[in-house]
């Protein structure tokens, strides 16, 4: 079992008065390491419109590499514009995953569009930075990973990785929309695609994880790292109804694999639980694990899907990521 020491809430845009475009929410943290600082890309939102609908933008904050609780910089404006009229990402770019690739950086993101019969739809886009991650430009007006016969809607939650020369994308695909008393709720699960160039993708075509919460379990944010000779995935999962409460809210799960395709789910090993009180007492979700200067850390969101910010935890044990 993993043992994490919670280091506390790192950042809450609502407390910082960071600007109208960064009114609330710090979601989907994704780390890129620099010599003197650790950059955390994340998604943030202005106030909702009159109908309660949100936009979401890409942002970053920089942490002092020697003291990760010290925020040295917060970006001043969105790093990526929203998409043009009628495109898949007209209303938001969230969640995100950022990767360095030589002199360039790429962000893979879920684009938000709005529909009549269901609130939103999503597909995965890509944008590139050639100024060290200060700004991103999309590579096309359309998505880089789009719908298919068995992935009909709600593609999202991308996590981009490169192992050797091959690009891997873990993501989620919608299975069905459930009718509820309020808005329809989507059911989605974790999948994988691979690519030679990060642009032309071969979808693996099946759900990677078994279900623990029944037919309508939602699984998201498949955060994969390679350590101790095998692949580890931290992810979040929840029920499809009443998920904004402590009982039904997101939890962090864990699975491991030797080949990236066949995964053994062992949520009981994840070791990351909700707190008794406070900002992460109802849910913990959207984990992102990274290694830095001999330590392993997890960034994650708390209550209300990250409305109240991002927290940080440090791995206490095991230290060696060996077989456990």
């Amino acid at each position, binding site marked *: 079992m993993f043992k994490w020491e919670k280091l506390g809430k790192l950042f809450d845009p609502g407390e910082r008065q960071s600007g109208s475009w960064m009114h609330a929410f710090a979601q989907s943290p994704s780390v890129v390491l620099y010599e003197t600082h650790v950059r955390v890309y994340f998604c943030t939102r202005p106030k909702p419109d009159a109908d309660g609908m949100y936009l979401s933008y890409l942002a970053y904050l920089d942490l002092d590499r020697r003291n990760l609780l010290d925020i040295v910089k917060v970006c001043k404006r969105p790093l990526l514009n929203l998409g043009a009229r009628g495109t898949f990402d007209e209303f938001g770019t969230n969640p995100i995953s950022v990767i360095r690739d030589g002199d360039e950086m790429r962000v893979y993101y879920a684009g938000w569009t709005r529909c009549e019969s269901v609130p939103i739809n999503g597909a995965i886009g890509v944008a590139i930075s050639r100024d060290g991650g200060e700004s991103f430009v999309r590579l096309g007006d359309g998505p880089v990973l789009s*719908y298919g*016969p068995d992935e*009909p809607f709600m593609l999202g939650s991308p996590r981009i990785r490169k192992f050797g020369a091959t690009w891997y994308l873990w993501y989620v695909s919608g299975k069905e929309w459930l009718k509820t008393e309020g808005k329809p709720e989507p059911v989605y699960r974790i999948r994988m695609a691979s690519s030679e160039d990060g642009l032309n993708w071969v979808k693996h075509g099946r759900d990677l994880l078994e279900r623990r919460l029944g037919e309508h379990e939602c699984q998201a944010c498949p955060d994969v790292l390679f350590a101790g000779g095998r692949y580890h995935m931290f992810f979040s999962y929840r029920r499809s109804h009443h998920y904004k409460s402590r009982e039904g809210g997101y939890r962090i799960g864990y699975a491991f694999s030797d080949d990236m395709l066949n995964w053994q789910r062992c949520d009981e090993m994840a070791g990351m639980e909700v707190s008794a009180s406070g900002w992460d007492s109802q849910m913990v979700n959207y984990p992102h694990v990274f290694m830095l200067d001999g330590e392993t850390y997890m960034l994650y969101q708390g209550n209300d899907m990250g409305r109240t910010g991002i927290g940080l935890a440090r791995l206490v044990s095991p230290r060696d990521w060996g077989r456990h």
Partner: protein
Amino acid sequence: MKWIKLGKIFDPAEHELPLASVGFAQSPQALVLDDRVRIYFSTRERDRSGKYLSHVAFVDFDQRMQRILDVSRRKVIGLGGLGCFDEHGIFPINVLKDGDRVLAYTTGWNRKVSVSADAAIGLAISHDQGLTFERYGSGPIMAAALNEPFLVGDAFVARYGGVYHMWYIFGLRWIRQSEEAPLDRVYKIAHATSTDGINWRRDGRLIIPDTLNADECQALPTVIHLDGRYHMYFCYREAHGFRDQHGKGYRIGYAWSEDLQNWTRADEQAGIDVSAEGWDAQMQCYPHVFECENRVYLLYNGNEFGRHGFGLAVLER
């Protein structure tokens, strides 16, 4: 090419169609069977909000295209489920005999908020000579892509030399003529190939040069191989004012190719134009070319995008 007009051959008001049709018989496309020619089209109903839903229906003609034998009495293919790409309509449907099966390439429509709708191409398969179709998955086989951001539709599929070729359209941009005007879409014809009819490789280029202007809308390509050449018919129009302004509505365009890659546009050789008066005097759109008993036919819609039915022309040879 020279076409002899045979007039309007089907008026949806004269038949009892399933699904509470309120008119429209759009984008007629033929499946030539042993004893009949089955012509699929899209008809419309209004939903509770007053908006249209497009449904697939068909009419059977004898092989001389002179007599109506039957019209579809049951659902040919239902609409997609909640949140699916084809939840609010299928229009058009392109059918292709493939051994014992009939493949249908559908254009599915779903309603959006900032623009009226989006579209993607689905596949459905029939094992009963096209009476009914089952979806190949609840999602599309051709959807938006990096450089094809929306409105992917109007597939026409043909097999040449063991390869499936698809001609289709995708949207480039949504634009307004003026600040108060509604948004209009711009779309163009493209090409993709496949070895199985399911997984497609796109060319990534626009294959038909514009003649009106950069915002010309090109739609519904249909291709036939005759006398050693590939002939493409399609329709095209201005981006704005195309519903009601004289001269801005759909016309039938034409291009030819010898290699399926390079197309020469030659609308003046289309061999068909709007009539001086009558059902196809303001507009001609949604052409579909097919061959039956050594005759080559052109199905198409006239005024009001096919609200009042479709007509037929035969190639003079």
